[in-house]
């Protein structure tokens, strides 16, 4: 079977072999490994066969711990088994990994090495996860490129079967897992040639079976455990040779020869760098470049890190080596050095001591850290390491790639140093996620990779916002293999797909002299120059750049492409970059369109063809008029009014210059100020809501539903309008309690995402023109400055105090006058989760402590550069932390335990200090009724009085009381997360919190999938829905988490859906928070992963409830004491067939299209679920209350 040339990423490369070689695959989503699992699930769904001719069983588990345990079981019963994971997921597998290795089990897991969360979470790549498992007994094999990942997947599989040592096939997260490369795909023949079937049968023969029973996994005592543990030594000793032999066999098949340690560079090198992972490619490029310049340098690629073969390492080194630098992509605080460094030092010391090294004297060895969390590792940095080795006293335990101005570990480097060959096309594309830039570029890499003899590489960078996210694509095409595993910083082509970027980002910084620049611009070629900021013009002039422009949005509009300008800009790229002859390029683009979109229907293909054909007519070269830049300047990144930290640190991150921040700029323990999103004015909405006071009925619904808190309302004294800007809108407030006051709804147009949820939610219509509501969309640009000024004035108006005596905050209308303490997050436009978070902060934000499970809510809640939780006028607001994915319930419980303990201690101290405090204050503090907002405010005043009275005291009890007095004021503890957390990985924690009596509020924002990782099925996914890992439609019904919690009888439980019944939602939040034990709110949240028009998200929620797919209820154990049923059903009997709801959502509809018979079967079952659930809940609600008559 001939080998195909394919253009794929590292994940697909690993998954290809993993799938072929597996009978059982246990999976769980975690970035960046998730695509491997998704790919395997999708292949299985269409019946693709493995090398044995069967379809592997793909089983999603509840966590990586579960996946590893399922793998352990499958392996123990003889299946060829695999899994995929990274980071925290790998850490969760550790216990099972020890077992699998301890039992000498043949297995390969595929790992995208990713940073382990410490002071912060990072989804990006380094080796901190795989270094944490080096004691498990698994072999660790590193592939440095997409080709190597595929090759090593097979070599690992062949080796593990022979060695009986399990293997991790490791690639660098993102840099390799997501890099698209042209590679030679291994054929089934290659796989068969490498795998000895007899070894597979031996693996099966070792399996547990009652036909030949054995016991494995005994408990051993001190008498024999040690000896038994040492029995494995021969297996580990043999493994390096087994791997090398497999590499040799592989070389004879494919011509690609690998070694346990591969050396590249001058044969007489004196300075050698040792490292592993994708940075080896860059180090190779650098070493070869410098060696060609006559420098005596080389580098070692560590392939098999465990078992570590010291002799093989030194054998790979030239005998001329005098100095070695070992680079670790991990940090081990407090260690004598990072792991690879220590291993190399040990290896050199031992081999030199025993005379097995090729050099007589021990070379000088230094170690350093690089590339944590995908920090760039460039040839310039690598050269700095080589240069350091020339010094008499080189720095040891250095860092490279950052500026460490605290402990001064960092090496300086010259960023202008480049090894990029001239004949390589190096193109950067700046785009928006929504405009399709990345997808088109992936197609371009495929076109060039598969249709030309050129090597091709694509790497894609996304910012951390889920709406209006900026992407940069880095594409290289060249005549030789590409080893540049770093972002392009010397570009000969730069495309800017959004005109607004020219005033926000240094888009031309990486352009080399004479580079071609393609700019999507709404302005004609003869006008565009004057619209560009001087900073941009200066770059064009200084570097003699060739500027081309087109109005891609105009073309897109004319050809029905909407906002997707991908194929239009792609056509322009091919037309002016000269990578391919123009006609051939267009033919290939069309071919790619057919391949990509053909299955979506001919109309889509034709639309894209039309866009390609129209593109070239609109492409024009810009005549650069003069040599003097104009006066237009890039605006400041943040307002000069921003706090110093935001101006000096946050602003650098916002502007894309975070890499330049030194160590001293970073907080030491991951603690950051809140309320920073207000300074990041993203201006991403083309249209924004405009308030019409004459139509408005002041219901507050628009304010309630705005996912980004961009619509606010206030009632205030009309006298304050004296200083209002001229365009500030105001009308008489329609509150009986607030007569003679003014009312305003203000839009933060620079923060709005343009989702239009507010317009959809607005119930008020103009009686003379029903299409005009009280909120309507209008172009943002003309409103930007005036509305920014209006917002500033609005924010200066007094907020409605929560302890207001005249208003009760139990209705939407009233609550929406409260200041949200969660604003302008990076959530998706139209997000269904964030309105719940915002509501929580409006009601309880001033006293909330939030434990956030990892997921969407932790990303939009806490991903730098700016974070949305903010403070009220008194500086009070939510305190927030994200521990892990799985532990938010327990994490929150821990908060509560401390608060209870501290309150108890504080009360003790108050009694003790009664004489100093006075009886009135002491009694007030100890008997405070904090069931109302005014009660809480009063207690805050008492605590302030306490602090005042005790201030300056040297008495130990007073100092102690001062340190815990805050706990005397009621705090609201919330654990937040999605259904992946609550139904799956964190369920054990939730269940345990349910079983306690502690006051922890658990808010589950239920999107029915793992939204943050791209929509994988959870146990919340409804029957019949298509999700990743449930590509054939979820066969089982949704887990009834609420009922499980109700079983305790002591947990407050509510199921809410804001779009169906906002008043019930509010009631549930208030009741849950007031309940003195554990509370669970399951908040149905529409989501981008449902495949809906996000503007209609609230309507989708309503349909879900109307159909009975979602049941609204509240279960309040307090009611039982009153002799009432604790369960109150808040929704009406299903009034529409389930099909009327589900087939409005793509997640269901696509199954109906792809597999109508299965869809019909699952629909029937799901409809039956609805009826059964309704009847059961009716029964539960009507059940006699224990203890009542």
């Amino acid at each position, binding site marked *: 079977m001939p080998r195909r040339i394919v253009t794929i990423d590292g994940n697909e490369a690993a998954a290809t072999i993993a799938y072929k070689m597996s009978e059982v695959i246990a999976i769980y989503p975690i970035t960046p490994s998730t695509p491997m699992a998704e790919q395997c699930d999708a292949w299985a769904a269409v019946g693709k066969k493995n090398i044995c001719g069967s379809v592997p069983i793909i089983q999603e588990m509840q966590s990586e711990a579960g996946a590893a345990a399922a793998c352990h079981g499958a392996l123990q019963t003889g299946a060829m088994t695999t899994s995929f994971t990274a980071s925290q997921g790998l850490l969760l597998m550790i216990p099972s990994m020890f077992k699998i290795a301890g039992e000498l089990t043949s297995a390969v897991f595929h790992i995208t090495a990713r940073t382990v969360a410490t002071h912060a979470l990072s989804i990006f790549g380094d080796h901190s996860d795989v270094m944490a498992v080096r004691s498990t007994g698994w072999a660790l094999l590193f592939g440095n490129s997409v080709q190597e990942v595929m090759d090593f997947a097979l070599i690992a599989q062949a080796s593990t079967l022979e060695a009986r040592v399990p293997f991790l096939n490791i690639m660098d997260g993102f840099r390799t897992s997501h890099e698209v490369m042209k590679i030679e795909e291994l054929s089934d023949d290659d796989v068969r040639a490498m795998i000895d079937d007899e070894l597979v049968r031996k693996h099966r023969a070792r399996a547990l079976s009652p036909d030949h029973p054995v016991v494995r996994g005994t408990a051993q005592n001190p008498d024999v455990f040690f000896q038994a543990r040492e029995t494995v030594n021969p297996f580990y000793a043999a493994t390096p040779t087994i791997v090398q032999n497999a590499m040799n066999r592989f070389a004879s098949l494919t011509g690609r020869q690998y070694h346990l340690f591969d050396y590249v560079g001058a044969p007489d090198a004196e300075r050698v760098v040792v490292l592993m992972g994708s940075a080896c490619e860059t180090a190779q490029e650098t070493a070869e470049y410098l060696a060609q310049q006559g420098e005596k340098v080389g580098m070692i690629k560590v392939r098999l890190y465990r078992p570590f073969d010291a002799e093989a390492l030194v054998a790979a080194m030239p005998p001329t080596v005098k100095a070695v630098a070992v680079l670790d992509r991990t940090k081990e605080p407090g260690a004598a050095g990072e792991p690879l460094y220590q291993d190399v030092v040990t290896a050199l010391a031992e081999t030199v001591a025993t005379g097995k090294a090729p050099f007589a004297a021990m070379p000088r060895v230094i170690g350093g850290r690089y590339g944590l969390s995908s920090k760039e590792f460039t040839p310039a940095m690598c050269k700095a390491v080589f240069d350091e080795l020339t010094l008499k006293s080189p720095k040891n335990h250095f860092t490279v790639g950052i500026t460490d101005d605290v402990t001064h570990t960092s090496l300086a480097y010259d960023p202008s140093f480049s090894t990029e060959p001239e004949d390589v096309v190096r193109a950067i594309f700046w785009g*928006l996620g929504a405009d399709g830039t990345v997808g088109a570029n992936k197609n371009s890499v495929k076109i060039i990779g598969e249709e030309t003899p050129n090597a091709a590489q694509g790497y894609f960078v996304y910012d951390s916002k889920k709406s209006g996210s900026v992407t940069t694509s880095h594409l290289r095409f060249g005549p030789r293999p590409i080893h540049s595993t770093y972002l392009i910083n010397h570009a000969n082509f730069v495309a800017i797909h959004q005109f607004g970027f020219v005033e926000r980002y240094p888009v031309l910084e990486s352009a080399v002299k004479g580079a071609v620049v393609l700019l999507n611009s709404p302005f004609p070629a003869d006008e565009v120059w004057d619209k560009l900021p001087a900073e941009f013009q200066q770059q064009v002039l200084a570097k003699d750049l060739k500027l081309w422009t087109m109005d891609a949005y105009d073309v897109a509009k004319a050809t029905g492409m909407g906002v997707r300008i991908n194929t239009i800009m792609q056509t322009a790229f091919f037309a002016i970059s000269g990578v391919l002859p123009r006609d051939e390029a267009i033919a290939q683009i069309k071919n790619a369109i057919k391949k990509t979109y053909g299955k979506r229907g001919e109309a889509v293909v034709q639309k894209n063809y039309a866009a390609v054909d129209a593109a070239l007519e609109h492409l024009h070269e810009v005549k650069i008029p003069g040599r003097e830049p104009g006066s237009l300047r890039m605006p400041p990144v943040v307002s000069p009014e921003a706090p110093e930290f935001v101006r000096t640190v946050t602003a650098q991150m916002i502007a894309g210059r975070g890499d330049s921040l030194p160590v001293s700029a970073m907080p030491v323990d991951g603690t950051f100020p809140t309320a920073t999103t207000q300074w990041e004015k993203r201006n991403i909405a083309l249209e924004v809501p405009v308030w019409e006071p004459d139509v408005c009925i002041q219901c507050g619904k628009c304010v309630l539903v705005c996912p980004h808190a961009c619509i606010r309302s206030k009632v205030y004294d009309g006298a304050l309008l004296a200083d209002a800007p001229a365009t500030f809108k105001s009308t008489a407030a329609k509150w009986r309690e607030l007569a003679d006051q003014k009312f305003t709804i203000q839009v933060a147009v620079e923060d709005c995402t343009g989702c239009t949820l507010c317009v959809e939610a607005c119930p008020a219509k103009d009686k003379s023109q029903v299409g005009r509501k009280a909120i309507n969309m209008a172009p943002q640009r003309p409103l930007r400055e005036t509305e920014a000024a209006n917002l500033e004035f609005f924010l200066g108006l007094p907020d409605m105090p929560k302890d207001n005596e005249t208003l009760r905050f139990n209705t939407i209308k009233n609550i929406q006058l409260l200041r949200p303490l969660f604003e302008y997050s990076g959530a998706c436009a139209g997000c269904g989760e964030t309105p719940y978070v915002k509501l929580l902060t409006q009601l309880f934000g001033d006293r909330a402590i939030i434990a956030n499970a990892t997921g969407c809510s932790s990303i939009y809640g806490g991903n730098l550069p700016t974070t949305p939780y903010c403070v009220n006028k008194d500086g009070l607001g939510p305190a927030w932390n994200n521990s892990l994915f799985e532990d938010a319930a327990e994490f929150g419980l821990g908060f509560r335990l401390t608060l209870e303990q501290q309150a108890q201690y504080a009360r003790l101290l108050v009694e003790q200090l009664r004489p100093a405090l006075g009886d009135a204050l002491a009694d007030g503090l100890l008997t405070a009724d904090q069931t109302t907002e005014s009660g809480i405010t009063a207690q805050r005043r008492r605590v302030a009085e306490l602090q005042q009275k005790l201030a300056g005291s040297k008495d130990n009890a007073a100092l102690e009381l001062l340190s815990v007095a805050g706990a005397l004021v009621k705090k609201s503890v919330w654990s937040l997360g999605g259904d992946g957390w609550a139904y799956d990985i964190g369920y054990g924690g939730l269940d345990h919190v349910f079983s306690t009596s502690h006051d922890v509020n658990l808010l589950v924002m239920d999107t029915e999938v793992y939204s943050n990782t791209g929509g994988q099925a959870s146990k919340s996914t409804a029957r019949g829905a298509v999700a990743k890992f449930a590509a054939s439609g979820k066969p089982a019904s949704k887990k009834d988490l609420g009922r499980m919690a109700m079983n305790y009888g002591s947990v407050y439980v509510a199921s809410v859906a804001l779009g169906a019944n906002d008043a019930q939602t509010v009631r549930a939040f208030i009741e849950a928070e007031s309940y003195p034990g554990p509370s669970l709110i399951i908040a149905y949240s529409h989501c981008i992963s449902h495949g809906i028009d996000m503007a209609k998200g609230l309507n989708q929620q309503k349909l879900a409830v109307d159909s009975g797919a979602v049941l609204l209820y509240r279960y309040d154990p307090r009611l039982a004491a009153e002799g009432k049923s604790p369960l109150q059903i808040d929704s009406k009997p299903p009034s529409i067939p389930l099909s009327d709801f589900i087939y409005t959502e793509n997640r269901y509809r696509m199954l109906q299209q792809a597999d109508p018979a299965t869809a019909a079967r699952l629909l029937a079952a799901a409809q039956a679920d609805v009826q059964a659930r309704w009847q059961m809940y009716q029964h539960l609600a009507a059940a006699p209350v224990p203890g009542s008559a």
Partner: protein
Amino acid sequence: MDMTTTYMGLTLEHPVVPSASPLSKNLDGIRRLEDAGAPAVVMYSLFEEQIDAESHRLDHFLSYGEESFAEAISYFPDLGSYNVGPDAYLELIAAAKKSVSIPVIGSLNGVSRGGWTRYAKLIEDAGADALELNVYYIPTDPKLTAAEIERMYVEVLEDVKSGVKIPVAIKVGPFFSAFANTASALGEAGADGLVLFNRFYQPDFDLENLEVVPHLVLSDSDELRLPLRWTAILCGRIKPDIAITSGVHTGEDALKAMMAGAKIVQVASELLHNGLGRIQGIVGEMSTWMEEKEYESVAQMQGSMSQRNVAEPAAFERANYMKMLASWRPDPTGALI
């Protein structure tokens, strides 16, 4: 009683044919229609606009949000194929042709000029015995003239006729200022059948929510009179066979249609309301009446009351209107009734 009729060259056992409706959405439905005695079946319509919309919709939702966020490069699995496009429709025709013996008439509602011809050919290739073009167009552009619209109808028909060999009927609405002329032109353009009339679903207003809402109302016998009149007027004057498709619910309705000159009646509302048994029910009612009145065949009565054959041809023209006016009396209360 000889109930046979011919329509576009197809010999049918009787003239009561199920029209394009959800009844022919799947093979079971088509089989049931045959079992219920349908002499032919007009398939539900293949809507080019709907195919395109499904395609765009699918593309939108599969693309929306993808490649925007590092942890979620996409939001849906790739299901391989989605059956968007005409394949399912064409497969149904092919399957129907294999499993029923009655003629299968495809129905097509196109949008683009290329679409009409492409899908017509595909329907023919799938094995349809004939094709009904379901032209559904609301001319809202004030600049568009009647002549331009009429020309568009003719062009669509000519395009389709030039691409297929099977008989082609065209189903139109009644809103033409010179319908006799239009019908004649369609005949000249090659129409083998003229189906009167397409019913446009009229939107309604929801006063509570101040919204325009779709409102589907099934036909009743009162609606027969408009196509009855035009059938009677056109019978014998134009080339195409005429089918009446609005308001046929009873044997009496069908008899009237035959007498006006229709070759078949197409029924849907009656079957949806009262079941498939109404096919034979209507035929039976016709047959009973014919026996009572000593008719020998359907052919005998077809066109017997067309404008050409009635004693008072003017009854179909202005006189009809005049008579209506003459029968009107002012309400004694002064209100107009």
